[in-house]
């Protein structure tokens, strides 16, 4: 899990102090440091880049205007992520085709996992980095919203269970149960993508096969067959 560097909370506090002391430029440093996380979280809640971008902008504007309300008991990351989730949830509720949490998948994973095929020892060696990233992103986006947001906060952004519970307004047992379902769904989603994406070596063999056929056809043409 990508846990933040140990010095991160101090850095954030120093930056917040500077903004409060009248240095708005320090806020730019805060934005640069956290934009990736905020976009990732709003994308997890909303599921599309356009709405996620708007929610991200609103998050930073709100954070800037209310930075005086930040209480040092919580990590700055938790405070900011909570604003991001709230902004994204408001947008989700405002959307015409809003899907209720129940419909978003709460009842979907009652059954046991159905994929029972072992994976290759090390799938990361079979695919390029870009391809692996695309498959992971695609699998995350395919999760129902409530599992996607829990998975992103816990397993992608590395927040503690208590922080994720606070941000999403859920109890600790609820977060744990959602995370379990999210992981099982993510396992299935990634397995499906690994199965359907040909590995690098398979693609080379396929290309080599096609080249052999082309050469054979050209030879046949050349000898007038």
């Amino acid at each position, binding site marked *: 899990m990508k846990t933040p560097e140990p010095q991160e909370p101090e850095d954030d506090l120093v930056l917040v102090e500077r903004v409060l002391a009248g240095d708005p430029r320090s806020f730019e440093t805060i934005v640069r440091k956290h934009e*990736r996380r905020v976009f990732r979280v709003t994308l997890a809640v909303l599921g599309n880049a356009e709405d996620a971008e708007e929610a991200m902008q609103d998050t930073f504007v709100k954070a800037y205007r209310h930075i005086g309300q930040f209480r040092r008991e919580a990590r700055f990351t938790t405070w900011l992520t909570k604003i991001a989730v709230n902004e994204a949830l408001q947008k989700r509720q405002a959307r015409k085709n809003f899907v209720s949490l129940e419909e978003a998948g709460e009842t979907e994973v009652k059954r046991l996992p159905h994929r029972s095929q072992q994976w290759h020892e090390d799938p990361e060696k079979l695919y390029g980095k870009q391809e692996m990233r695309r498959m992971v992103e695609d699998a995350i986006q395919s999760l129902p919203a409530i599992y996607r947001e829990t998975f992103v906060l816990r397993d*992608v952004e590395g927040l503690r269970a208590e922080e994720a519970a606070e941000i999403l307004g859920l109890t600790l047992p609820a977060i744990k149960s959602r995370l*379990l379902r999210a992981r099982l769904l*993510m396992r299935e989603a990634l397995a499906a993508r690994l199965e359907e994406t040909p590995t690098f070596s398979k693609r080379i063999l396929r290309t080599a096969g096609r080249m052999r056929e082309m050469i054979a056809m050209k030879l046949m043409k050349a000898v007038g067959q």
Partner: protein
Amino acid sequence: MAMLDCKEVLDHLSEYIGGEGSDELRKAILLHIARCGRCRIVFDTTGKMLKIVMDVEPFEVPLGVSARLYARLEKVLAEE
């Protein structure tokens, strides 16, 4: 500890992968997955999935998205 069934073992998947849970619980899970191929595969591949997610190249904010964010904040900061 009594023998665990597949559903009970699965309920403790996150704890087990996170290295949590009592020794007794971990032993009961190990005992189950040693005999149950299906649960063994689920435990193993969920662990692999998490490793892949952790190791994958970091997610980047698209350039245009980032530029529009800075442009909007520039305005807000100038106004206030």
